[in-house]
């Protein structure tokens, strides 16, 4: 199920990219001085901000404390100005709640929570501009923010979306491509082991095409991993240089 606008005859997408090409990624860590960890990522026109506080003592009821590991608390919100039409509620609506739950489950599995028993790690993701792949940008930003906070993780969590135009897989869909109605596969991957932390598919995709789509999304996640890895290393160089002086 594909519309002709997704892929032109020469093999270019609507914004001039090749099918397997990702949008330009710009990322920065340590954006805020007050928070324990923060990161800002731009994937094309999608802008996401993630802030991490923790690990700290459990706020609110102590009864929620887990005796052997840390509690991960996530909030996912889309800024009111992020979409074409002004959003009424930035967070608290059902979709944001579900995405926050997905974030929490993903990061609970990826962060080494057993090192911080009876404590809490807060991850707040804010989408400043939504142009397709908002959840993926959120996950990538959250990964960088958690690393900026110095919280040990099993591996990077890299997320990317993929779709299909007839039988050609497209990666990193923009909002126009997502709205076209074709299948959209959302994948969050731990690149070293290849484990899938989150898998979500909307709209119909033929069973045979699943492998192709998964493969494409997996490659895109690995490419993103290389990018994010470079960002982290540069940040580390920055910090050590500042400390050395």
């Amino acid at each position, binding site marked *: 199920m594909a519309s002709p606008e997704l892929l032109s005859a020469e093999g270019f997408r609507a914004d001039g990219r090749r099918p397997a090409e990702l949008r330009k990624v710009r990322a920065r860590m340590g954006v805020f001085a007050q928070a324990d960890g923060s990161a800002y990522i731009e994937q094309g026109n999608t802008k996401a901000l993630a802030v991490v506080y923790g690990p700290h003592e459990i706020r609110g009821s*102590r*009864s929620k*404390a887990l*005796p*052997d590991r840390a509690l991960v608390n996530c909030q996912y919100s889309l800024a009111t100005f992020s979409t074409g039409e002004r959003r009424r509620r930035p967070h608290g609506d059902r979709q944001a709640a579900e995405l926050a*739950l*997905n974030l*929490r*489950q*993903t990061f*609970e*599995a990826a962060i080494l929570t057993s090192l911080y028993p009876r404590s809490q790690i807060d991850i707040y993701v804010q989408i400043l501009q939504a142009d397709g792949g908002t959840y993926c940008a959120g996950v990538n930003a959250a990964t960088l923010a958690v690393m900026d906070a110095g919280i040990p993780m099993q591996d990077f969590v890299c997320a990317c979306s993929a779709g299909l135009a007839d039988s050609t897989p497209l990666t990193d869909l923009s909002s126009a491509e997502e709205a076209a109605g074709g299948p959209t*596969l959302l994948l969050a991957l*731990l690149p070293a*082991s*290849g*484990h*899938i*932390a*989150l*898998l*979500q*598919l*909307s*709209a*119909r*995709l*033929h*069973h*045979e095409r*699943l*492998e192709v789509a*998964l*493969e494409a999304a*997996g490659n895109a996640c690995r490419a993103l991993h290389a990018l994010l890895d470079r960002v982290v290393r540069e940040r580390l160089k920055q910090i050590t240089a500042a400390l050395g002086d």
Partner: protein
Amino acid sequence: QVWQIRLDLHLLNHDGNIIDAASIAGIVSLCHFRRPDVSVQGEDVTVYSPEERDPVPLSIHHMPICVSFAFFQQGTYVLVDPSEREECVMDGVLVIAMNKHREICTMQSSGGIMLVKDQVLRCSKIAAVKVAEITELIQKALQNDQKVRKEGGKFGFAESVPNQKITAFKMESTAVDTNNVEKQAEEIITKADPPTEVFAKPVLHTPGTAQIGEGIENSWGDLEESDKEEAAEGKEECEATAFEYQQMQSEGTSTMTETKDEPIVLSDSEEEEVVILEPQELPRKTR
């Protein structure tokens, strides 16, 4: 002007995997539904009542059916259609919705499980088989209902109650082959090691503290902080001095394996010392 259709789902009994059941119920009810016939001539719209013209079914393009896969022990075990007990202990679930044309309508993983691509592909293959079976069952049921209605027989929810077809809280018994069980049991018994001696009798040291079995060295001092209150109360019954209490506090290391199975005392109390008026009283567990 358009038709608006509303689907209300009521869950009567939860014995696991409500998503699958709800998806089947939903799609079957939509297939079964008939709306009044309409004729439009220019600006005039005539809606015929069911007596005037037979109601018309909805145009259903395809029937998506959900199949859930529960994962256990970091993906070692995969169970299709988990029951309620299995859901309570599962690591996470993968829901795949497919139709009989082998198109995946939607897929979602939740629960923080780490999947591998092969598992996902395998699950989708299993789902294809299950969905084909279920779709056939649905078609047969719908055809049956249509036939009964045409013939003028009794149909519907009320009719199925006395026959115990639906709303009957029972499960069919599965046949179990018990022919070779005795022989197998003998084999297992002869191969197995003799069971370890069970220490049923606890040794009472002082009121409030007992010991069952020899066990390893008494590591009360290594108890986690949360159990400090419990341990403190116990220790006081053993007439521990304040000095011993201080010593226990300094040994902050906790042995996770030991405290894992013990009940956890969750208390906001900042009390350093707990004084018991009656030594016979069991330590109070606060939630």
